[in-house]
């Protein structure tokens, strides 16, 4: 029911409105974004004894891409059942992306995902099959009762009951005395003297219900606001505001850090993806064989099974073999087929998948469309795992898929779920147009450049989670958040509080409240978002050249100069949405600048410059880094594995973090005694 229209009455805004009223707070560590990485950072920082504040745009209890749930705890090479080392796994993950994955946060993930999950278990999270539901299953360790996914031989991805991890983390914040402010959309990072490139001294934002201005002064800031989305596609009509990730993760973190002078790497990478398509179905809600649904059998209209093959195209027969490495592989990473075309990864690391030439074989008459995921035909343990622990805990499937489908009569023991366009040998198997691109919905993408402390080039500004360059996953957000929180707290111990510039606050206030004064005759935020997407579709899409990119820049600058100032907001919630789209414009500009800077094509980066068609020439095999310098963009580069050795960079810092957390908890128990 759309209330104001249907009832013929217009209601008053239900919350007290306090535009411009300033609320000032102080902390040792400020966390921006109370999602997975942010809350883990807050917990770690508070565990060292630091005074912590979290500013979250939505409601921390459930917010973020991982708020509704998680089923796969990825890359936990430190778990007791793993047959491979964190070094081996991190290196494979980096190599699999042609080097374009962060060795820093990926190593932190591979070396401490399990340790982090153990902490989750202490908070009350379920990570073991304690009810013996899967006793005897090939993916279960009978002693520890841990359940594994994908590669049952090497056992480094865990299946978890993550549907309530986020509320448990929120509860831990309460126990640790962390101050959490929900519904505050951060709109700027505060720097010393208000100067870009200077030390970070806090952040400020707007409350989405009251419109009040919230400013926090802090000795260290952890940015954990996830990635930009709605860059190439936008339609509120078609699917849950268009893409895979939550609409509130709108790229604001990128925009505010960029404006403050932070460096960003790999911003030129984007890919065609069903995760960005407004025509896609609910994630993991149609027949497929990847992630949550791995290793589900796919059948055609007559019930004929689609065969599976290994990375070299050799047949893989039977369901059980889909979960074991093949000859020529020590271990494999995920499986089911990759949507990451044209660079799906290295064969020595790729898991089995349904035949990639299904479309040709169907056209030749071997298979009859449509296709289905044959849940009913799966071995019992696998079926119970997919339509149980997996669909029951995966982000965004517990209610939208499991509960809703079953309420309509779906029966996993009898039914086969419809696949849409299961033809092209790509993961999600839904029709995708060239312009249905995404920056960060899927896979490893660009983000804030950080060092082994997870600190950016701006002193005092740390990053965690999906916002980091070249990192991804829930367990990555958790492990990197925990690491960044501890590093930030240690940094705060060594630093004095900086001065917030009143001039910066005044300037920012003027900017953020401006949409309230605009006439409603201008476009609204949705129209502006769609306009940005159109520019990106037309001028920064699958095929790029200097002329197209220069037009992209021209038309984004035009939107920025002539339309952004006309977009109006009628209440604090709309104000938040308008400011998000301002940041989406900035993110699009960052992407175009990086695309202009890379004068070579790259299969790894899904980057096709028609004016530089040679793929991945050696001299361009490097990270491109952009930074805002006045009105210009400064471009620099880094060698591929610039992070150096994993172990010697990680170990001492990890030990220091652990010691800081342990001594604070001892001090707390002494105080309690």
């Amino acid at each position, binding site marked *: 029911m759309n209330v104001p229209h249907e009832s013929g009455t217009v209601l008053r805004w239900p919350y007290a409105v306090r535009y411009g009223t300033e609320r000032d707070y102080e902390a040792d560590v400020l966390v921006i974004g109370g999602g997975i990485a942010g809350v883990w950072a807050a917990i770690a920082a508070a565990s060292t004894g630091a005074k912590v504040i979290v500013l979250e745009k939505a409601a921390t209890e459930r917010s973020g891409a991982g708020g509704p749930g998680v089923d796969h705890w990825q890359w936990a090479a430190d778990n007791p059942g793993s047959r491979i080392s964190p070094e081996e796994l991190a290196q494979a993950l980096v190599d699999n992306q042609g080097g374009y994955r962060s060795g820093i946060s990926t190593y932190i993930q591979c070396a401490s995902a399990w340790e982090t999950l153990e902490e989750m278990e202490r908070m009350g999270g379920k990570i073991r099959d304690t009810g013996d539901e899967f006793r005897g299953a090939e993916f279960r360790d009978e002693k520890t009762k841990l359940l594994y996914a994908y590669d049952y031989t090497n056992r480094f991805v865990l299946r978890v009951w993550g549907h309530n991890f986020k509320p448990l983390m929120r509860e831990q914040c309460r126990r640790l005395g962390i101050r959490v402010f929900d519904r505050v959309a951060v709109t700027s990072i505060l720097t010393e003297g208000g100067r870009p490139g200077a030390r970070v001294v806090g952040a400020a934002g707007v409350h989405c219900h009251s419109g009040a201005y919230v400013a926090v002064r802090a000795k260290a800031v952890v940015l954990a606001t996830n990635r930009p989305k709605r860059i190439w596609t936008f339609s*509120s009509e078609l699917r849950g505001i268009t893409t895979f990730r939550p609409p509130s993760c709108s790229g604001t973190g990128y925009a505010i850090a960029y404006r403050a002078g932070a460096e960003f790497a790999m911003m030129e990478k984007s890919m065609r993806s069903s995760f960005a398509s407004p025509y896609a179905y609910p994630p993991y809600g149609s027949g497929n064989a990847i992630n949550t649904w791995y290793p589900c059998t796919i059948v055609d209209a007559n019930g004929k099974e689609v065969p599976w093959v290994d990375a070299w195209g050799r047949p893989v027969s039977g369901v059980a073999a889909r979960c074991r490495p093949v000859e020529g592989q020590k271990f494999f990473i995920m499986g089911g087929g990759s949507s990451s075309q044209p660079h799906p990864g290295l064969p020595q690391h790729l898991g089995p998948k349904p035949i990639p030439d299904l479309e040709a074989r169907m056209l030749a008459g071997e298979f009859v469309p449509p296709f289905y995921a044959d849940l009913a035909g799966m071995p019992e343990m696998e079926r119970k795992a997919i339509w149980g622990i997996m669909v029951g805990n995966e982000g965004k499937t517990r209610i939208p898929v499991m509960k809703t489908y079953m309420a309509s009569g779906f029966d996993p023991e009898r039914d086969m779920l419809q696949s849409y366009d299961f033809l092209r040998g790509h993961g999600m198997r839904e029709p995708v147009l060239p312009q249905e691109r995404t920056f960060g919905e899927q896979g490893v993408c660009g983000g804030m450049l950080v060092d082994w402390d997870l600190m950016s080039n701006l002193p005092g500004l740390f990053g965690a989670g999906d916002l980091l360059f070249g990192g991804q996953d829930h367990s990555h957000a958790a492990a990197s958040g925990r690491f960044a929180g501890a590093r930030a707290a240690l940094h705060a111990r060594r630093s004095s509080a900086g001065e917030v510039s009143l001039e910066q606050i005044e300037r920012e206030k003027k900017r953020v409240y401006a949409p309230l004064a605009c006439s409603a005759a201008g476009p609204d935020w949705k129209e502006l978002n769609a306009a940005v997407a159109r520019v990106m579709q037309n001028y920064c899409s699958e095929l790029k050249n200097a002329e197209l990119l220069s037009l992209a820049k021209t038309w984004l600058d035009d939107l920025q100069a002539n339309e952004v100032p006309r977009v109006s907001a009628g209440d604090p919630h709309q104000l938040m949405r308008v400011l998000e789209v301002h940041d989406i414009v900035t993110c699009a500009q960052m992407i175009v600048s990086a695309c202009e800077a890379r004068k070579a094509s790259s299969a790894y980066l899904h980057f096709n410059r028609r004016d530089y068609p040679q793929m991945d020439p050696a001299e361009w095999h490097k990270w491109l880094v952009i930074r805002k310098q006045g009105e210009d963009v400064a471009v620099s580069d880094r060698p591929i594995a610039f992070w150096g050795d994993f172990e010697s960079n990680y170990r001492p810092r990890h030990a220091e973090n652990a010691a800081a957390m342990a001594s604070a908890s001892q001090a707390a128990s002494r105080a309690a005694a």
Partner: protein
Amino acid sequence: MDEETIVYALPNRTTPGNPVLFDEAICDGCNRCLTVCLEDVFIPNPQKGKPPLILHPDECWYCGPCVDDCPLPGAIRLNHPLQQRVRWKRKDSGGHFRV
């Protein structure tokens, strides 16, 4: 037509307009769904004890915590847009169904 019928001049509705459906007989208006919502889709109902009002249906992410965290089973359910309803086939009978 009845001459007394009042017809209002209203703009088109925002669509899809009902991301969730409330059962007013069960819901006690506790606003827990509103509190946890990831996208600030609801506002409190001015009438105490009634379900929240859906103010921003077009911003719903169809993620489900509003349903998952509701203390009264059946008070709220997710309502996928018609064009998002996935189909399936029953293996033994060959019958076709949808959400």
